[in-house]
């Protein structure tokens, strides 16, 4: 129930295992399972049925025990009746008693044996009776008398009861199995639904969300959190329903059989349970501690291992060790305490079980001796006590493990409930990418990532079809902001961006995206073949068309050298270099074939020759398109029709190369600085 702190737990806050609103998230979880209600109801019925059956079975075992003891006890009254009849009959002659012929000799032997055990039979104090002596005497009695007084076992009744009990056991097992079968469907289906909803949600969220949240966070919601919800559904819900009904069943049966014993059993179990509850709540603290400290050591280890070169070069070992030892010590304490306390639970429950047993036996014995109940009732109660006390601890455990599951479900639903991008209902400019000229106009555009801080203040510019716009600035200057606005990844605060005179506010995001080809520095590749990566969602494109594009960007030769040509898997052994990846993304852009282009010129980790190839391909891509280029090459910048100089998020200067150099501002400074030392 308390899984170790895997990498998934890394970096999460203190409260990751605690739900903020436990009952709220459970309610939500239940309401989200709407489509599975019928299955769940059937599962509950099965579980209830199984529980009821397993409660009835001890009852049958008690009946069997009664039957067996019935064939065990010598009926004193019968012995007295037989001996009286024998004594009143003629001792020297055979006579018939209850249809059995008892010979004269038999009578004599019988009387002798009765004499032998007489003092035992007549003893005042029952404790003085030597039962085995009596039983031994009976064995030595003549056959005829034995048949008269020996107890008889009702084999038919036992056989009947055994068959019934066997059927009940099998039925209860089958029902429990069916419940598991159905719950497997519910869990897998529910987990699948949740995952799909998260996956779909990703594409409905504004990019703003991903600026603030880490990828690892979303990933852990999709796997760890969904898994945790699913497994708790499977285990905890199942346990609570099944064991709960078992407990209720046991209670009902106990009271129905004998209310005094029922009270004894319940009170003794509950006493123990209170202990267990205290232990559980105490150990919870150490489990949380442990999770927190494991997270801490994880971060520390990650830091040291990944920066090992620096740790070594700077002799940072002592510092690293000090921190490590401190956390490691804390884990030691938390480990020991949590393990010890949680380890106490089972022995305590076992003790409670035994305590209940003795309590039931003693009080049962009292009642038996006073003739209130039969021995079978005690046997049944021994099972009831077990049925009552063991679910208690399992339910407590299930509720305990529901805690982190509730926390997980909160995280899942928090993501699903996240505010989506603005609605696009009623939008649509009926724009067709084949008929777009390619003019674009910025009209007093104002934008800020936060409402209170504008970073693009009143930007206006007119770009004619086919022109090139270079965006320059130091790293982190906010060049991607322009990409974000052009692609309508973010909505502008005020002003307008118009394409061919039509406001982008009137267009759907999908329409705008269809007008743009985007090639970023991140050579984003996904698992699949080279062909998949180039064609992407243009599934109807033919291999011939793709090869033509590959030839244009200078990728044709490379693809022919691949073992399976276009069908080669991109994951296979890193055979594709960074430069070739860049060419593939350029080819992908060509397939898209849109009138506008957004291009990041940066070539990272590419050797000089490949760089030339990539630059040639980029030039090809720019041909005939209105292009926005995050520029790194002087030639591009110098040839650009318009340069947007950005720093710290703002567009601080605009103009062409000559104008900006003449101005002697930031751009000129930037341009000149690269040659100074």
């Amino acid at each position, binding site marked *: 129930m308390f899984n*170790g702190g895997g990498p998934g737990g890394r970096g999460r806050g203190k409260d990751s295992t605690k739900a903020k609103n436990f009952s709220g998230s459970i309610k939500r979880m239940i309401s989200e399972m709407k489509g599975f209600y019928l299955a769940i109801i059937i599962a509950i019925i099965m579980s209830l049925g199984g529980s009821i059956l397993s409660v009835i079975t001890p009852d049958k075992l008690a009946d069997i025990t009664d039957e067996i003891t019935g*064939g065990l006890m010598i009926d004193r009254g019968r012995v007295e009746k037989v001996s009286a009849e024998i004594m009143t009959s003629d001792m020297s002659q055979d006579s018939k008693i209850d249809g059995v012929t008892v010979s004269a000799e038999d009578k004599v032997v019988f009387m002798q044996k009765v004499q032998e055990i007489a003092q035992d039979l007549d003893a005042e104090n029952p404790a003085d009776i030597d039962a085995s002596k009596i039983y031994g005497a009976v064995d030595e009695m003549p056959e005829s008398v034995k048949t008269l007084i020996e107890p008889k076992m009702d084999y038919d009744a036992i056989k009947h009861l055994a068959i019934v009990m066997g059927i009940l056991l099998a039925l209860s097992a089958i029902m429990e199995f069916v419940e598991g079968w159905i719950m497997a469907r519910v869990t*897998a289906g529910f987990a699948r639904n949740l995952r799909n909803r998260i996956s779909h949600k990703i594409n409905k969220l504004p990019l703003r969300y991903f600026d603030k949240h880490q990828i690892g966070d979303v990933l852990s919601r999709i796997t760890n959190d969904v898994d945790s919800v*699913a497994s708790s559904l499977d285990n905890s819900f199942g346990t609570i329903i099944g064991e709960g009904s078992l407990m209720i069943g046991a209670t009902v049966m106990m009271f129905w059989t004998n209310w005094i014993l029922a009270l004894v059993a319940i009170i003794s179990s509950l006493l123990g349970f209170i202990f267990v509850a205290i232990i559980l709540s105490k150990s919870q603290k150490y489990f949380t501690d442990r999770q927190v400290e494991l997270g801490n050591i994880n971060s520390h280890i990650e830091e040291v291992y*990944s920066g090992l070169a620096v740790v070594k070069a700077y002799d940072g070992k002592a510092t690293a060790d000090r921190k490590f030892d401190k956390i490691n010590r804390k884990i030691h304490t938390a480990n020991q305490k949590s393990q*010890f306390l949680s380890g106490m639970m089972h022995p305590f429950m076992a003790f409670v079980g035994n*305590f209940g047993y003795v309590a039931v*036996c003693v009080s049962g014995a009292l009642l038996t001796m006073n003739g209130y109940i039969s021995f079978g009732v005690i046997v049944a109660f021994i099972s009831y006590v077990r049925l009552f006390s063991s679910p208690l601890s399992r339910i407590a455990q299930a509720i305990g493990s529901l805690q982190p599951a509730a926390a997980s479900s909160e995280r899942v639903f928090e993501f699903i409930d996240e505010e989506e991008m603005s609605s696009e209902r009623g939008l649509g400019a009926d724009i067709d990418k084949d008929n777009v000229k390619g003019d674009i106009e910025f009209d007093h555009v104002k934008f800020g990532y936060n409402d209170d801080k504008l970073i693009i203040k009143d930007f206006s510019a007119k770009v004619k079809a086919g022109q090139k716009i270079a965006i320059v600035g130091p790293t982190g200057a906010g060049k991607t902001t322009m990409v974000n606005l052009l692609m309508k990844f973010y909505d502008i605060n005020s002003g307008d961006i118009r394409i061919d005179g039509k406001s982008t506010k009137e267009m759907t995001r999908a329409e705008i995206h269809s007008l743009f080809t985007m090639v970023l520095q991140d050579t984003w590749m996904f698992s699949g073949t080279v062909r998949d990566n180039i064609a992407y969602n243009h599934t109807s494109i033919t291999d011939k068309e793709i090869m033509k594009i590959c030839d244009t960007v200078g990728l044709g030769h490379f693809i022919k050298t691949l073992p399976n040509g276009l069908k080669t898997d991109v994951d296979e052994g890193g055979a594709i270099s960074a430069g070739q990846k860049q060419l593939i993304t350029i080819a992908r852009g060509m397939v898209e074939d849109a009138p506008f282009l957004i291009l990041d010129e940066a070539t990272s980790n590419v050797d000089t020759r490949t760089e030339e190839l990539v630059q040639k391909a980029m030039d090809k891509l720019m041909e005939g398109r209105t292009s926005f280029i995050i520029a790194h090459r002087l030639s591009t910048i110098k040839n650009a029709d318009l340069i947007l100089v950005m720093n710290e998020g703002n567009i601080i200067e605009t103009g062409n190369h000559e104008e900006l150099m003449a101005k002697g501002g930031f751009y000129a400074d930037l341009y000149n600085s690269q040659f100074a030392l």
Partner: protein
Amino acid sequence: MFKLLRYLKPKDYLFIGLAVLFIAGQVGLELKMPEYMSAITRLVQTEGSEMKDILQNGGMMLLCALGSLISTIIAGWFVSNIGADFSYIIRKKIFDKVESLGINEVRKFSTASLITRTTNDITQTRMLITMGANMLVRAPLSAAWAIIKIHGKSWEWSTATAVAVVILLATIITTMMIVIPRFKVIQKLTDRLNGVTRENLTGIRVVRAFNAEKYQEHKFDKTNTELADITRFVDRVMSVMSPMMYMVMNGITLVIYCIGAYLIGNSVMADKLTIFSDMVVFSSYAIHVIMSFLMVAMIFMMIPRAQVSADRINEVLDTPLTIKDGNFDDDTAETGTVEFRNVSFKYPDAEEYLLKNISFKAEKGQTVAFIGSTGSGKSTLINLVPRFYDATDGSVFVDGVNVKDYKQKALRRKLGYVPQKAVIFSGTVASNISYGDSGNGKPSERKIQKAAQVAQAKNFIEKLDKQYNAHIAQSGTNISGGQKQRLAIARAVARDPEIYIFDDSFSALDYKTDASLRQALKDYTKDATSLIVAQRIGTIMNADQIIVLDKGECVGHGTHKELMKNCEVYKEIALSQLTKEELNV
């Protein structure tokens, strides 16, 4: 697995002994209880028994239960200590070991894998020790004890019990055989699902720009459905187990009673009572036997999982250290010199050399730059100086002494190393700059500020909320890449080294900062030697020596001017970055 236990301390072995003792005591007491149970049974059932006797037996049974509870708790205390000690000791061992590993070994394991080995794998093995130790001792003891108790009572009952054990074990083994290979598939599918999601998230702009949302969702859905199908199947197979166990456990009692009825019926009166109480006792011991076998089966399921983890831990602990410490830490005749004599390098497990026959000498106060395309070996070369790797052939000298002869501490005190990707530790700005041990005590506050100024970090630091005491998150996620790089440089400056090593440390800076930083550095450290790996020609144009590398070989050595004349590779790189007139040729 047992190999790891040798790291435990004598105290832990004592604890293990005591734990075994108390577990044995507990098992003994637990198995004593059915005797009292049967005594109570007999008493309750015999007419005229006295309450006193029932109470006495009940009391004894409760005493046993209490004793067993207490010994379990004591044993639990020992076991929990052993487990905690174990993970404490092993974790420390691995951490120490990793700290002393060479960069090459770390590369071979991969950082992520080393992290899991230090955390998850230890948790796995600890679980086997704490849970397993308990069961490993308990199960055989209690099985043996219970078997002795019921031995010779009746072969019919024993056979029935044996059959029950076989049925249960067969169920478990078949289930596991079906399920375990599929667990691996589930893991793989989960990884793939993660992959598809990661893909969608990292490329979110591309996905949207290409209107490819449906395409991604379809891909996700396919894997998701596969995953759901196989988990459902596995869950269903697994759901056989619990009802089966329940049925067998209850069934065995029924069978024993039925056999009992038959035996009683066929025996003479004198034996009937004995058989009856034997039957009650047997049925409870039989459950003990079955439970013990279940426990053993569970351990066998746990062992392979823990064994994998233990092997992974041992693999780290048994890795031989390739970088051996020397013992030279005296003063040297020269200062600030670095010399490579015919140095070649390849990874021990690789075939091809990454560096071939490199020779040069950097004199005190000089700047030596290294340039070349990716994979040309420039980073590897520079990493031979702080002995992150050792040269395969030839030798590297610092201040005229072979780096292999130095005590590593002594060698590294001479060096100020700045890696390609800035390493930032959680803490404060100041703790990052003053990081480590330079042999001269902690740098003063003034020194830290001076270092920050040289590294062009002063401005941004002083804009932070608490300035030098500003909190820095893990990996420096709350500051930008350029800021991280400047802090990393300040860290080197604060150390006042004889020799600076910049492994492509300037690429994250814009041209302007790059230039002013190098100027400030030059002013501040006139006597220090600098080894610089760079990608930008602008960064290295004025170096005293430039070494051009191509596929591990030195294809040019000289100043910028010389190389522009006689080195094709250098010219090619230069021209791809700057125009002819900008290069002044």
